[in-house]
């Protein structure tokens, strides 16, 4: 049966409360809290909408929020006892979450009001800071399993959304003018248009001129700026012909309206700008809750507990100085390079350097920043400043090379030829008409520019890539912007990181090698292993399924060696080969846990990474087309498993430091290859930025992943080849749409060159060409995505 709170399976013996089943204590405590506050409607809006969180005890995890300085950075507004804070809560996902988070004031008198912004997954809470402190607000949220994500880069508020508003505004204004001017220009085209007296023509002309002004001046501003910037770099991007088209259209129409001998092309002009702006909006889709520009700041904690002469006090990270002594608790991240003073340090570097197995350190050893302490809390002394630590130092180097030069994308290349050809045609027709009928010369020149304006061309890319991006998003592959699609198409070699990317680092596999253990021996091993918090013993314990455990007497732990105890009257030792057998380990490259029961060594558990399902099929598919490489910070333990997969030995490199990975990518790029790097940890950050396309694989897309161009949900890893191949199809569709828009241009030029491009032809041709190209691009992408990327 499923848990009332979060809907997960409760297993055989669920936690019962008032005869309602819960999968864990956490869920039942939340249910009780909501019950007390009469908020059980939470489960009516959307049943089983709760979120499951393992350890609910907060302890003083949020003590750092009491620090005044951090509070000032976190709070948006605070004076006269009222303060406002905006917290990012990734686990907001449904109407019940909105309802509960907006009824916080029922749960605590201090909270005045709270409102949720659903797409950004933020909640804006206003509270009375004499009654409730910010920390209590955060702890209230955590108590109902809505855990806010507070990291360093959240402190420096980035005001996004400005551009979103101005684009929406431009679309609104141009839409308004387009609809109205279209109606002013219709009488000319409609039956009976000839008997339109001159008074009306002038009147409609003036009105369309007035309405065109704000559009041409304000709404099309971005195109002029980007064209001007392009020309400054002596590069004709797509915005140059657009600006040319707009300017000519506007001057030609204003001339006709003012001299009163025509109605002008105002409706085509505003329609062009309106469609272009919609294209820009469609292409500019962003995932407001995801962020692709994370750096180490959003990974490290906001504050640390410093120990000066025995007293613990929380200190913001920025105030950490060399020889400070700090306390690191279980699952906390080490903020700076330091030396271990006391405590048993098991550092999990999988996310930082790629080593899949946690490393045990003795006091006096050196510890790198970024590792995560597993097990009991330790005391360390800072050796280097946070910014200078080995890892972040690596980070600062890359920032110089971070702004990739604006790739000369396909569309800009096409627009260069396009502009040159069009200007040529315009000149030729002007010169031709100069001899035959001078009056027509200027008109022919302008009408060539008008009709050939690349409206359809300029809409192809935004709508094709826009829909590709949306289709990818729907299938679990979130990319930063549409340029990624083009870069992804051009790659020819792929580099994989091992830990966390092709392996699932949270669960490891343990395989027993040696004489088969009987049931009693298995449960003995399990009971001893379950006493130690060392990750390796946890893996061994999990690998022994449904065995009950016995009680263990005089259990002793030897740091970085092993554990021993007496179970069922039998002496049991488990640990490294040296500890258990006294001899060196016969096969050093793999990690083994030897088992000694009663009187002899029965064998050893071989610890291996468990690979992502479907890895084999992905590698085989990619191997045919691209050159594959594996760079791992881990030891060679997995070489035997991986080499059959990757084929040639040469491509597998181990013990790669983050700097080595980056240098490797640079070498490949110097050889002129286009590199795709797929990684997940901090150690891949440098390589991800350096490579042409950097993708990260994330189990939870809202958790930290280094700066990259795209995030793939781990469940969608199997479809990586299809995603990459689909970029070819979308480029193909762009090319087909180009051809369609060229056809329209030829038809238009046929009229323009003869100098009889009447407003009605422009008014018909321009919308039809744009709409047909847009429709073609969008529908074909949606259709092909459905077929080519099956979501099984």
């Amino acid at each position, binding site marked *: 049966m499923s848990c009332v709170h979060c809907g997960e399976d409760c297993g055989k013996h669920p936690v019962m409360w008032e005869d309602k089943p819960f999968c864990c204590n956490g869920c039942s405590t939340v249910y009780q809290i909501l019950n007390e506050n*009469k*908020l059980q*409607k939470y489960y*009516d*809006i959307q049943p089983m909408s709760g979120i499951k969180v393992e350890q609910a005890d907060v302890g003083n995890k949020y003590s750092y929020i009491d620090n005044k300085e951090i509070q000032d950075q976190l709070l948006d507004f605070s004076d006269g006892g009222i303060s406002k804070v905006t917290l990012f809560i990734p686990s907001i996902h449904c*109407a019940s979450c*909105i*309802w509960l988070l*907006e*009824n916080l004031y*029922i749960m605590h008198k201090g909270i005045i009001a709270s*409102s*949720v*912004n*659903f*797409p*950004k997954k933020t909640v804006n809470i206003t509270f009375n800071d004499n009654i409730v402190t910010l920390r209590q607000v955060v702890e209230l949220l955590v108590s109902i399993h809505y855990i806010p994500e507070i990291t360093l880069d959240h402190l420096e508020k980035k005001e996004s*959304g400005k551009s979103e*508003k101005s684009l*929406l*505004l431009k679309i*609104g*204004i141009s839409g*308004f003018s387009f609809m*109205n001017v279209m109606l*002013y220009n219709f009488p000319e085209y409609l039956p009976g248009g000839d008997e339109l007296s001159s*008074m*009306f023509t002038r*009147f409609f002309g003036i*009105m369309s001129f007035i*309405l065109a002004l704000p559009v041409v001046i304000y709404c099309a501003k971005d195109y002029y700026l980007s064209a001007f910037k392009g020309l400054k770099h002596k590069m004709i991007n797509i915005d140059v012909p657009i600006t040319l088209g707009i300017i000519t259209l506007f001057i030609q129409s204003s001339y006709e309206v003012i001299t009163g001998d025509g109605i002008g092309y105002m409706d085509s002009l505003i329609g062009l700008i309106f469609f272009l702006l919609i294209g820009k909006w469609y292409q500019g889709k962003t995932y407001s809750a995801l962020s692709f520009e994370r750096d180490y700041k959003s990974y490290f904690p906001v504050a640390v507990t410093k120990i000066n002469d025995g007293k613990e006090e929380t200190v913001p990270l920025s105030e950490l100085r060399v020889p400070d002594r700090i306390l690191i608790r279980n699952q906390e991240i080490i903020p700076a390079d330091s030396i271990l003073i006391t405590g048993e340090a098991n550092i999990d570097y999988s996310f930082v350097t790629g080593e899949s197995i946690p490393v045990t350190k003795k006091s006096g050893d050196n510890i790198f920043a970024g590792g995560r302490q597993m097990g009991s809390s330790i005391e360390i002394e800072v050796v280097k400043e946070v910014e200078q630590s080995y890892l972040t130092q690596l980070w600062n180097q890359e920032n110089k090379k971070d702004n990739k030069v604006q790739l000369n994308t396909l569309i800009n290349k096409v627009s260069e030829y396009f502009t040159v050809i069009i200007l040529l045609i315009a000149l030729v027709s002007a010169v031709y008409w100069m001899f035959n009928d001078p009056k027509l010369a200027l008109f022919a020149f302008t009408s060539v520019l008008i009709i050939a304006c690349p409206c359809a061309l300029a809409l192809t890319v935004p709508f094709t890539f826009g829909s590709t991006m949306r289709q990818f998003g729907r299938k679990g592959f979130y990319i930063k912007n549409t340029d990624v699609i083009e870069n992804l198409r051009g790659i020819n070699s792929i580099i994989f990181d091992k830990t966390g990317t092709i392996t699932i680092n949270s669960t490891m596999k343990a395989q027993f090698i040696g004489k088969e253990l009987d049931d009693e021996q298995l449960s003995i091993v399990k009971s001893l292993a379950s006493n130690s918090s060392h990750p390796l013993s946890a893996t061994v314990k999990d690998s022994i399924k449904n065995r009950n455990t016995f009680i263990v007497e005089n259990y002793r732990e030897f740091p970085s060696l092993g554990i021993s105890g007496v179970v069922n009257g039998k002496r049991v030792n488990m640990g490294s080969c040296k500890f258990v057998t006294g001899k060196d380990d016969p096969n050093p490259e793999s990690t083994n846990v030897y088992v000694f029961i009663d009187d002899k060594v029965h064998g050893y558990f071989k610890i291996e990474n468990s690979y992502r399902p479907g890895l084999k099929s992905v590698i085989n598919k990619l191997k045919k087309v691209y050159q594959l490489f594996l760079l791992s910070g881990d030891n060679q333990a997995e070489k035997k498993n991986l080499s059959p997969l990757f084929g040639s030995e040469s491509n597998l490199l181990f013990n790669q430091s983050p700097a080595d990975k980056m240098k490797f990518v640079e070498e490949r790029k110097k050889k002129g290859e286009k590199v795709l790097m797929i990684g997940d940890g901090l150690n891949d950050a440098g390589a991800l930025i350096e490579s042409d396309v950097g993708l990260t694989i994330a189990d939870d897309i809202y958790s930290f992943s280094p700066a990259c161009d795209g995030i793939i949900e781990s469940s969608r890893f199997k479809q990586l080849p299809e995603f990459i191949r689909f970029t070819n199809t979308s480029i193909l569709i762009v090319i087909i749409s180009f051809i369609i828009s060229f056809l329209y241009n030829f038809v238009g030029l046929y009229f323009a060159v003869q100098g009889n491009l009447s407003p009605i032809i422009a008014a018909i041709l321009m919308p039809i060409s744009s709409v047909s190209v847009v429709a073609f691009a969008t529908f074909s992408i949606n259709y092909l995505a459905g077929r080519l990327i099956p979501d099984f």
Partner: protein
Amino acid sequence: MSVIIILVIVGIVVASLFLIGFIWAVKSGQYEDMYSPSVRILFDDYKESANNDDGDMLADNNIPENKYKNDKISNQ
């Protein structure tokens, strides 16, 4: 037929009034979140029926039973 001019002028004046309304709406951030308003209007049902401390609000359990016993009560 010059009344058409009046109608067009009146029409465009009213339409630009609404355009200014649109500009104000976008600027004042009415369209930042396009999902929660549609859900938020359903919430006050719950508050009303959640009998909070001053108790005089419409609580689920104190709606009087329908005196005229007939078919299944429909829409509550």
